[in-house]
């Protein structure tokens, strides 16, 4: 086993480990930020300032009783959360999170920080996130309960509707970058204009960025598009009948989907790991900062805006967001052709 292979395995393990930590941290961050926005402290008792709260949450969930409704389909009931969380983790596999580094001279040739760098990386992320629909729809179906079924169907319809705007917004960035590989898209954003404005695609594609963020929020079933799991209307939507570990996998899948969306948004629009003051080996610090900013925006939006009703949600997705993203693509294509000719 040569060193390079071992280090690549270590990078894969490290990415997986950090994703799990991300979901745990997001559990805490969501409740703390929600608390501060509502002028209270949030979780405060477990650990200093409530920092060990995710540990308490996870222990509680692991020790609950595993229930399964009598009429529920035995295999599909267990398969659904597994599908959800597998798709969530797998989607992060093609996202690069750092520049190529030799690990301070340990290796002869630089190794790229990221699990895999596929030359059609953007499409693979899209493909795997579209497989995440199955977890939710199977959860709704197999629970054999009307709340779950409605929640599952609505969530699936919402996700496949907003996938279109998501893909079209992505395509506009691909036009600018000229490549489907995420690493090349990020490398196209190195450098600055006029010495201080970074060459991020968000400045070239502001409308596209907004469309991507809205579609991303809708894809991950987060507020204001979280009608499928609305606590007030549907009990808990597709995960009504779930408990303990099977339940814990659903919010974990949701938080990891959020992280993946933020990571892809950072790579496509915000310049990935390029930032002003740090040398390239430490680019992952900038990556973390940018992801943190986008995740904070996710949580901020959730606890500020009221929820869309389901038909308003579908109308918005089909009648406003999708035409806007197609228009964005056409204008981008025209400008690229005009300025390159």
């Amino acid at each position: 086993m040569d060193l390079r292979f071992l280090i690549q395995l270590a990078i894969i393990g490290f990415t997986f480990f950090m994703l799990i930590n991300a979901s745990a941290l997001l559990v805490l961050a969501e409740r703390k930020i929600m608390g501060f926005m509502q002028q209270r402290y949030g979780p405060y008792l477990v650990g200093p300032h409530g920092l060990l709260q995710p540990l308490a949450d996870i222990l509680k969930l692991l020790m609950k009783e595993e229930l399964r409704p009598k009429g529920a389909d035995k295999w599909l009931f267990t398969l659904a959360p597994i599908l959800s969380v597998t798709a969530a983790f797998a989607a992060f596999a093609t996202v690069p999170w750092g520049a190529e580094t030799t690990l301070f001279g340990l290796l002869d040739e630089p190794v790229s920080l990221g699990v895999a760098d596929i030359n059609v990386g953007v499409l693979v992320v899209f493909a795997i996130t579209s497989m995440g629909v199955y977890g939710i729809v199977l959860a709704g179906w197999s629970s054999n309960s009307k709340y779950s079924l409605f929640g599952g169907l609505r969530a699936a319809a919402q996700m496949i509707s907003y996938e279109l705007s998501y893909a079209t917004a992505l395509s506009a960035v691909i036009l600018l970058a000229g490549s489907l590989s995420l690493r090349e898209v990020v490398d196209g954003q190195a450098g600055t204009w006029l010495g201080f404005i970074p060459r991020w695609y968000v400045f070239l594609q502001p409308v596209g960025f907004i469309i991507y963020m809205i579609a991303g929020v809708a894809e991950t079933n987060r507020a204001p598009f979280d009608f499928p799991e609305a606590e007030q209307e549907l009990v808990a939507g597709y995960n009504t009948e779930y408990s303990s570990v099977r339940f814990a996998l659903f919010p974990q899948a949701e938080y990891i989907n959020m992280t993946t969306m933020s990571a892809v948004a950072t790579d496509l629009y915000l310049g990935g790991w390029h930032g002003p003051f740090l040398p390239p080996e430490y680019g992952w610090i900038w990556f973390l900062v940018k992801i943190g900013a986008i995740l904070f925006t996710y949580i901020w939006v959730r606890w500020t805006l009221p929820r869309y009703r389901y038909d308003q949600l579908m109308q918005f997705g089909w009648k406003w967001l999708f035409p806007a993203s197609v228009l964005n693509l056409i204008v981008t294509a025209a400008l690229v052709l005009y300025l390159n000719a």
Partner: protein
Amino acid sequence: MPETLIFWGLSGMAILASALVIGQRNPMYSVLMLIASFGALAGLYIQLDAPFVAVAQIIIYAGAIMVLFLFVVMLLNAPQEDAADWDRTHPLRQRGVMRFGALLALLLVLQLTWALLRVNGVDVPVAAQGDPDAVGSVRALGRILFTDYVFAFEATSILILVAMVGAVVLARREGDR
């Protein structure tokens, strides 16, 4: 050697999943088995140096068409006992006919295999001819699609529009707006 293992593993999975699709009584399980079969086929496409086709297979087939099938199966919720009753009493389902049908399917496999193996140069390993770098790149695919095959491309887009309108019209209830 690992290539051969991957090939046998993926094709075995595809064939097994497809056999389970037609063997399952519950249509929900059939749909899920077909998704697994599509995943295995996508792996085979990657092995054939066609990454775009593999990803398009997952996006279009496993991600969109199968969701449509799943919706229809869930919404129609056709009781399985209905099919089982028909199956038991229907003449086509008697033992002799079923075995004959399976025999015919086997005969079809043998005929197809015989026909396909008569192609010239079929024993040569894949990727022995031609330029290995030209195939599989999305840029080349896009170029050909918009120059040589542009008419088929535009015709397909009209086909999709017609299918969309048709599906909406056909599935409407009478008396809807």
